[in-house]
C-alpha cells in the first residue's frame, strides 16, 4: 500500500479506449473505440435521465402527492464522483425512523445520526467524493479516521448497532481485506446470530474498485467475488452517475449492511445529467441496457463500456480485424445486461434472458477462478441447460496478480469480449 494518494485519472478515457494492438503505431487520438465519453448508454439529456428505468422518487414530503415522473424535476450535469457526493448529501438527510430501524416510510428532512467517515474524507477523499461535505454538515458528521481499515469497519458496525446511518469509506477496494473479517463475520452475521436483536443494517461501506490502467497490484483489484457467499451482506457496483446516486441512496437506506464498490475510472470519465431530487434505484436487480435475441452479455461496472464497444465492433468490425469476424455473426442481436448487484444477484433477469438467447458471455475484471462469473455460470447452466446453444463463456482478468506494466492486458477489453462473442455465436 505504498501509494495512498490517488493520481489524477487523466488517462482514464484512453485506458478504456485502447485495445490489444501489436503495431508500434500510436493509437489515434481518442483511441480506436468509442470511449465512455461518447457512450450511448449514458443519459446525457434531462428527458432521458428522468426516465431511467425503475427510478423511484423519494420526495421530502411523503404525505404529499408524488410528483409526476418528469414534470417539475431538474437535472444537473454530473460525473460519477459528483453523483456519489450528491447521494451522500441526501444520505446525510436519510430516513431513519425513531426506533432506529431503517424504514423509508417517513423521509426526515435531517437525520442527525448519519455520519460519513474514512481515510481523508473530510477534505474530500482521494477521489473527491466527499468534497465539501465536512463544511456543509460539520466535522462531527464527516470526519477522517486513522489508516485503520479493520478498525473503520468494526467501528462502523458499533455505530450502526446504535441506530446510526454509518457511511464508511475504504480508500481503495484493495484495502478492504484487513476488514474482511469484520464484514463477513461481524456485519453479515450480526442479525442472524443475535436472533434479530441487533444488526449492522445502517452500515454502508463505499470503496473505489476496478482498474484504471496503471494502478498496479494494490490499486486495481475487483474483490466483489470474495463477498458473494457472505449471506447477510449486499454488494452493489454502479456503472454511471445516475446509477451511482440512485443505487447508493438505496444502499444507505437498505436495512442490511452494503458494500458499495465504485468503479474508479468512471469517477471523472462517466458524465450524465443526474436528477437533483432524491431518488433510488432497486438493489438486487439487473438492468437490460440493450435488448437482443442471439446472445446475452452480462457484466457490471467499467466493463459495461468495453462490452458496448464490442457490440459496435461486432456489427461493424474495423478493417484491421474484420477477417476475424465472420459475416454470419455480424447481424447477431446481442443483449447487454448490467448486473448492478452482485449479492444478491438477479437470477431471474439473467436466466430469463439466457433462455431466450441460448448463449451467455460473462465479463468481469476480477480473475476467472472462483470469480463472481463462476457462480453465475454454474447457476445458469443448471437453470438453462436445455436452452443453451453454447457453453457459458467468461471473459475476465487473468488469475495472476495485476502487475502494473501488464495492466492493460489484464483487464478484459473490447477485443477480448468481441472474440468471446464470435466464439460463442459460432459454437
Amino acid at each position, binding site marked *: 500500500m505504498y501509494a495512498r494518494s490517488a493520481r489524477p485519472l487523466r488517462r482514464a478515457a484512453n485506458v478504456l479506449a485502447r485495445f490489444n494492438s501489436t503495431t508500434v503505431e500510436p493509437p489515434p487520438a481518442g483511441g480506436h473505440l468509442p470511449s465512455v465519453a461518447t457512450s450511448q448508454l449514458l443519459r446525457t439529456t434531462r428527458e432521458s435521465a428522468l426516465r431511467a428505468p425503475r427510478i423511484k422518487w423519494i420526495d421530502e414530503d411523503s404525505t404529499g402527492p408524488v410528483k409526476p415522473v418528469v414534470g417539475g424535476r431538474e437535472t444537473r450535469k454530473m460525473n460519477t464522483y459528483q453523483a456519489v457526493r450528491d447521494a451522500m448529501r441526501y444520505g446525510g438527510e436519510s430516513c431513519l425512523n425513531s426506533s432506529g430501524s431503517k424504514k423509508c416510510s417517513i423521509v426526515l428532512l435531517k437525520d442527525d445520526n448519519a455520519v460519513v467517515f474514512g481515510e481523508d474524507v473530510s477534505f474530500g477523499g482521494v477521489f473527491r467524493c466527499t468534497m465539501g461535505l465536512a463544511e456543509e454538515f460539520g466535522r462531527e458528521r464527516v470526519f477522517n479516521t486513522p489508516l485503520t481499515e479493520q478498525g473503520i469497519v468494526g467501528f462502523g458496525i458499533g455505530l450502526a*448497532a446504535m441506530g446510526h446511518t454509518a457511511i464508511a469509506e475504504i480508500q481503495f477496494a484493495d484495502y478492504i481485506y484487513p476488514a474482511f473479517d469484520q464484514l463477513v*463475520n461481524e456485519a453479515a452475521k450480526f442479525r442472524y*446470530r443475535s436472533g434479530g436483536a*441487533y444488526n449492522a443494517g445502517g452500515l454502508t461501506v463505499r470503496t473505489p474498485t476496478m482498474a484504471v490502467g496503471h494502478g498496479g497490484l494494490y490499486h486495481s483489484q475487483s474483490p466483489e467475488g470474495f463477498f458473494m457467499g457472505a449471506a447477510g451482506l449486499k454488494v452493489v457496483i454502479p456503472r454511471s452517475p445516475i446509477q451511482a446516486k440512485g443505487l447508493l441512496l438505496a444502499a444507505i437506506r437498505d436495512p442490511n449492511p452494503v458494500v458499495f464498490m465504485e468503479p474508479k475510472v468512471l469517477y471523472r470519465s462517466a458524465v450524465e445529467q443526474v436528477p437533483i431530487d432524491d431518488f433510488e434505484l432497486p438493489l438486487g436487480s439487473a438492468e437490460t441496457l440493450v435488448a437482443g435475441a442471439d446472445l446475452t452479455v452480462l457484466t457490471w461496472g467499467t466493463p459495461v463500456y468495453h462490452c458496448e464497444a464490442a457490440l459496435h465492433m461486432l456489427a461493424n468490425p474495423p478493417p484491421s480485424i474484420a477477417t476475424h469476424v465472420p459475416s454470419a455473426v455480424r447481424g447477431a442481436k446481442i443483449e447487454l445486461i448490467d448486473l448492478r448487484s452482485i449479492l444478491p444477484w438477479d437470477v431471474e433477469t439473467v436466466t430469463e434472458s439466457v433462455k431466450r438467447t441460448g448463449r451467455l458471455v460473462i465479463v468481469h475484471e476480477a480473475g476467472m477462478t472462483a470469480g463472481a462469473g463462476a457462480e453465475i455460470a454454474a447457476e445458469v447452466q443448471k437453470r438453462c441447460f436445455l436452452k443453451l446453444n453454447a457453453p457459458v463463456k467468461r471473459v475476465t482478468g487473468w488469475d495472476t496478480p495485476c502487475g502494473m506494466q501488464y495492466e492493460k492486458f489484464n483487464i478484459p477489453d473490447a477485443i477480448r469480449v468481441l472474440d468471446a462473442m464470435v466464439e460463442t455465436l459460432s459454437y
Partner: protein
Amino acid sequence: MASLARLRLPRRVPFAVRAIQTSADTTELRHTPEDFSKPLTVKLHEESFHGYKCDIPELEVQVTKDELLTMYKQMQTMRRMEMAADALYKAKLIRGFCHLAIGQEAVSVGMEAGIQREDFIITAYRCHPFAVMRGGTIKGVIGELLGRQAGMSNGKGGSMHIFTPTFFGGNGIVGAQVPVGAGLAFAQKYQEKKNVTFAMYGDGASNQGQVFEAFNMAKLWNLPCVFVCENNKYGMGTSAERSSSNTEYFTRGDKIPGLQVNGMDIIAVREAVKYARKWAVDESKGPLLLEFVTYRYGGHSMSDPGTTYRTREEVQRMRSTQDPIRGLQRYIEEWGVASEQELKQLDKDAKSEVDQAVEEAKASPEPLTKDLWTDIYYNGTQPPYMRGREREEVHHY
C-alpha cells in the same frame, strides 16, 4: 498467603515493584456500623491496584450488607449456571462451542455492581455470566447453549452469541469486538448520553492488531470507552508470558492510562469499575484500560482439559487459596454480616434457581426449520431464494 501472581508477573516495570495482589480475602474491616442497615467501612489491600499514568482508586470503601449478600448470591448463581452448562455439555445436550468462566465470577458480577444499567458491555466468548447480569436470564443462556427457542438468540446463536439491550455479545472472533465497542462509545458520545462502553477482551486477544486500532481511535476522539482486559493468564493454551512481550496489559494503551486490578476480589473490581465510569463519563477524560487479573479453573473450552499447559497443582492452589466466592464468604462471616447458615441458604437458592432454569430450557423446543432462513436480511429485503443442501431445500422467500 502465597500469591500465584507474584511468581508470574514480571518485576521489571518500576512502578509495579510489587506484583498485584490476587488474593480474594485481603480486605480488612475498618468500621462496623451499629446495625447493618448502614454501610461497613473496609480497606482494600494496598496492592489491589496498580496505576499507569493515573492514580489508583481510594482503598477505603463503603459497602452495605445488602450489596455483599447480593454479590455473593449472584456469584454463586453464575458458578452454578456454568457448572450446569458443563454437565449439559458432558451429557451431550450442548453441542458445539462452550467456554466457561468458572473462577472469573468476581469480574462479571463485580462489574455489574459498579456500572449503571444503561452502560454497555461488549465481550468475547466467555460471556454467559455477563449476559445474565446485563438483563438476560439463566433460562435464556442455557436455552441458547442447548439451541432451543427459549435461547436469548432464539437458539440460532449458541454459546458466544448472546445479547441484551445493553450487552452487545458474546463475540466469537478474537479481538473483533473491541473496535465495535469503540463504535458504540462513539455513538454514546455523539448522542450525548452520560454512559460508557466497556469493551472487553482477554490476555490472548490483547495481541490482536485491531485492539490497538480501537485504542488509537478511542484516544484520538476521546471516546467514553473503557477497555477491559480480563487476564486469566492463559490465551487458550499459551501462558501470558509466552504470548506477550509485555504482560502488564494495563500499560499497553500507550497514552491511554491504565489500572491493574485484583480481579479475584469482587470489592476491588467494583471500585475499579466505579473509578473507570467516573473517569470516562463524569470527568470526560476519554478511554481507560482496566486489567482484571483473574484465573479460570477450567480449560479454554470444553474440549480442553486445561492441564496440559499448567499443572493440576496450580489450578488446585488457585481454587483453594484465591477463589473469589470463598473470599467473599470469608468477609461476610468474619465481619459478622451473615452466618454460615444464611449463606448456605443462599447457595441452595442459587442451585434451585439454576436447576429450575435448566429444566425449563430443556423443555423448550428446538428452532423451527423455517427459522433457519430468517434474520439473514431485514425481512422483505432478502434475495428471492437461498440454497439448502438439496434442491428440494432451496428456500424461496
